[in-house]
Every structure is written in C-alpha cells, then in structure tokens.
C-alpha cells in the first residue's frame, strides 16, 4: 500500500481530482465556506487518506487507527470531501454543508460526524490536540501515527509554538505536522500582514525534523511522509509550498477566495477547469 509507483501516484491523483470537484460542488450549494485553503490542501489530503494513513471508514473508532487533525479547521470542505470519498458517508451528504442540523458543520465537529477526530476552527488549537493524541499513543505504546495540517497564517497564533515546543520536548516521533504554505491570509499576503518566515528554520529551531516540498507534487508529498515515518525521537514538519485555490485559475493565489463561496456560474467554470486539467494530465 505504501509504495510510490505509477499506480499509487495515479490513484492519489484521481482522488485529488474528485476531492477538488466535491469542494466546488459543496460550496456552490452552501453558498458559504472556504474554497482557497481547501483547494490548496487537496493533494496533501489525497496522499494522506489514500496512501499514507491506516484508516477504515467501517471502524471510525478503531484504537489502532491513525489520526488526522485539521488544525486549519476552516478548510472543512477538503476534509469532508476526503472523508466522503474514503467512504465515511455518501457523497450526496456533502451538499448539506453548513445547513441547519447538518453533520457537516462550518468547522469540523467531532460530535456530529464520524471520521472527524477533533473539533477545530479556532486556529492554533488543533495542533495542540494532535500533540495530546501523540502523547496518548506513546503512553499506550500504540503504533498509531498522528497527522495535523496547519495553515501558514495559523502559525501566527502563539499557542502553535507552545504545541511545537511540547512535541519536541516529549520526543513525539509519531507526530507529523504539515504546513499548507499558500502565502495568503484573509487580509492579504502573510508576508505583509504578519510575516512568519522562515517557517522551516523556526520548526528546526524548535528541534523538529523539517522537510520542504512542493505541496502539489504527489511524489514529493509521499516521499516526505515516508521519510517522516522513519525519523526517530523528534516530530517532523513538512512545509508544503502550495497555491491557495489551486486547480481553479480565477481563485489561484487570490486572498479574496479565502472565505467566499463560488456562485453557480463560477462553480461551473471551476468544474470544467478541474476536469480539463485532469484530462490533460491523463488522470481518468
């Protein structure tokens, strides 16, 4: 399952296409939500859920399962699209995003949807949960791994660094954090609003292993995840260079698409682009 070859890369690529399509569809239906930061993470999520992690949708509470915490909780659409494709619930349910009474809350709610490991949304807290889960794993000498995805803007939250400090202090080599480094936050470029660079050096200074990758290159993502699995005594941070809104040309690298849902016509255009791109790359 964890080989990096044409087959596994093709599968992850296919899944990334489906995930992107479903992000657009659900946001067009809900009229509310976060496309930019969801699309930038689609390739990472495809690799995590369809190559890396030990997860069984039939046993969402299996004690030996790997755990994923979406620390950048506003990217809920990418998590929901991934969980649906993995088989946690039917894809049609995606269209209930953000509606009153829906298990698909605006930000992930672990009490409402199986497959969601943490109730996140308030930035900086998810990574802290992930540290706690990794600690539990060590205490119980369980083999599971814990993964968490953060935004680069999210790194502005001080508590992130409390968690990063603790993870290294407790030698949590069962923890992998991925930073979706798309360079944008709501008010504009991260560099201009509140510069967090150099990200990799910061994690390294906190005694983490650091791997820098192109967050849209599936082979690089898989290679990094594999390398992280082999690192002992310290957690790993994968700093993934990404493009906010990746896959939809009019959304790419635009801060305004952080929290604005596409209108029906825009969604149509977006879906056409995603399909065309997939065809061009020979992904069926």
């Amino acid at each position, binding site marked *: 399952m964890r080989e990096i070859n044409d087959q596994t890369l093709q599968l992850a690529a296919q899944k990334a296409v489906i995930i992107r399509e479903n992000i657009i569809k659900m946001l067009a239906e809900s009229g509310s939500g976060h496309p930019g930061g969801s699309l930038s993470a689609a390739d990472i999520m495809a690799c995590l859920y369809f190559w890396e992690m030990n997860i069984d949708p039939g046993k969402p509470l299996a*004690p030996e399962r790997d*755990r994923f*915490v979406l620390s950048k909780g506003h990217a809920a659409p990418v998590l929901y699209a991934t969980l649906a494709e993995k088989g946690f619930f039917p894809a049609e349910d995606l269209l209930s995003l953000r509606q009153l009474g829906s298990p698909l809350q605006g930000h992930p*709610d*672990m*009490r409402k949807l199986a497959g969601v*490991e*943490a*109730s996140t*949304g*308030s930035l*900086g*807290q998810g*990574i*802290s*949960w*992930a*540290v*706690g*889960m*990794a*600690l*539990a*794993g060590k*205490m*119980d000498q369980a083999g599971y791994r814990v993964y968490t995805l953060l935004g680069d803007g999210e790194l502005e939250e*001080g*508590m992130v660094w*409390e*968690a990063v*400090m*603790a993870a290294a*202090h*407790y030698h949590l080599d069962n923890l992998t954090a991925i930073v979706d480094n798309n360079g944008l936050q709501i008010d504009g470029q991260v560099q201009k609003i509140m510069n967090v660079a150099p990200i990799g050096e910061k994690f390294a200074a906190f005694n983490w292993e650091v791997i820098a990758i192109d967050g849209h290159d599936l082979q690089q993502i898989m290679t990094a995840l594999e390398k992280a699995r082999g690192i002992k005594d310290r957690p790993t941070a994968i700093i993934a260079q990404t493009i906010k809104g990746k896959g939809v040309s009019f959304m790419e690298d635009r801060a305004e698409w952080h929290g604005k849902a596409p209108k029906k016509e825009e969604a149509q255009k977006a879906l056409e682009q995603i399909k065309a791109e997939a065809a061009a790359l020979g992904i069926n």
Partner: protein
Amino acid sequence: MVKQATRDAYGEALVELGHRHNDIVVLDADLSSSTKTAGFARAFPGRFINAGIAEQNMIGMAAGLAAAGKTVFASSFAMFAVGRAFEQVRNSLAYAHLNVKVCATHAGLTVGEDGGSHQAVEDIALMRSVPNMCVVVPADGPSTKAALNQLYKRPGPAYLRLGRPAVPKIYNDGTDITIGQGIELLSGDDAAIIACGIMVEKSLQAARLLADEGIQVTVVDMHTIKPIDEELIIRLARTTGAILTAEEHTVLGGLGSAVAEVTAARCPVLVERLGINDQFGQSGTPDQLLEHYGLTVQEIVNKLHLLLKKKKSLK
C-alpha cells in the same frame, strides 16, 4: 479545629484515583508543587505531563488526550487555567464535550501576597457561562475528595475550584456528595445563607452568632454552581423569603447571580449578594485580604441584618 487546604485534599485524592484507574492522566503548567499534582507525578510519572508555562497548550493537549480515551485532570492557578486558557477550555473542552476536569487552585483573594494579577475573582462567572461545563466549588478537604471522585464518574468537562490556604474541615473524612445537590447544614426560617467554598464555614459561624440574637437561618453548602440545585433554592425562597449568598468571588456572575437567576424567574425574593465588590485583589495575607474586602463572619452577620430589615420593610 482540624484544617486542610482543598488543594492538598485534591493532590491526595488524585493519587488515590490514580491507583484505582489506569485511564487517568494529569497535566500541570509548572505549578505542580503548588497545585499538588506533584504527588500524582511522583506516583505515576508515565501519566503526568508538564506543559511548562503554556496553559493554552496544556488545555489543547488535554483535549487530545481525552479524545484518545483518557480521563484527564488539568491544573494550574485559577487565573491561568481558565483565564489565560479560557477560549481553549471553551472551544477544545466544552464545545467538543471532552472528558477533561480543569482543577484549578489558588482561586480568589486567599492567594495572598502574590497579589491582584494572580487572584482570580471572576473564574466562576467565566466557567458558568460556558455550555456543557459543570462547576464545583467544594468547601473543605473531605468534600473536595468527594467531588473529585464524583467528577471522575461523570464524563464530560468540568471545573473544580480550589484554594490555597488550609480551611476548617466541615465534613468527616470519607464523606460523599452528589453533584448538583446542595447540602443543608443548618435549618432556620428567618433567612437562608447559600454559600460556597471558604464562605460556607464562615456562614456557619455567622449562623451561630445570629442564633444567639434569636435569628434562625438556614445555611446551605451550594458546592455545585452548575448545574445549580434549583429546587433547593426555590424551597428556601418560599420558606424564608430572604436569601443571602456568600462567595470568595465577584458579586457579578458567580453563585449569587446564579441564585438570583433562579428566584427571579420562579419565586422572586430578596437576594443579597456578599462577595468581592467588582474589584481586583491586591497583596496581603489571606486573612487581611478577607477582612479588607469584607469576606468575614461579621460581614455575613451585618448583611443578614440588612436583609432582614429589607424583608420587614417589604411586608
């Protein structure tokens, strides 16, 4: 008069619980020798996590540990456990409905010399306002142990408010309590004193002084602020028509407010609130501070007289 600090009782009870239950994990934020979680740390080093001076991450880690199946107790001073980390308690514990008990010590003025920055006067109000939070303020050592045992059995987020100084034991060792049920320690129809924490024992003292004057008051240990014992409050409102609340906490939003919320809706009676009058604390010895801020036996007596005067004038 035998005394024990509620934080000491907490520390002991944690170790006892730790021996009986493997799923317990304890966290602290560099204050384990003060909060007394150090005892658990010594007994079960593999199940104790020091977060260092990082309370927000302490609460976040507590959430992760609870999500992974542990029963978690997280401690620091009240100011920092639920002040500094309020939003983490709210979003990571309460909103997610996780099995973490925040057991904070050094609440109120009796922190003493450290002064105002360290004296949480608003923590009960903060925790009470959060959905899903159970809030317990035990009056002495034995009831602290009872509360801890009960909270272990009651899955979900909770706040246990403890103090720094040794306080008189009201209950016998091995006593039990029921979360959500106030304890009527004395009965009398002239007025009711509903108190929590250190003010319970002071209320008992005041009641004896009042009895000498021919005034018979009920004294209730309302250890559970949330869910509060509404039926007891209503019964006392009906029989006495005058309630005095007493807490080592601001008069805004704590026990007094909780009681008034109940009576106002169901049985409007006079409710006089004794507590810290919307002020910060300052340095001093615990006893000096209690005197300075009016949290004394004499003040309870004075306020009770005032209450009865008002009750009479309403007739």
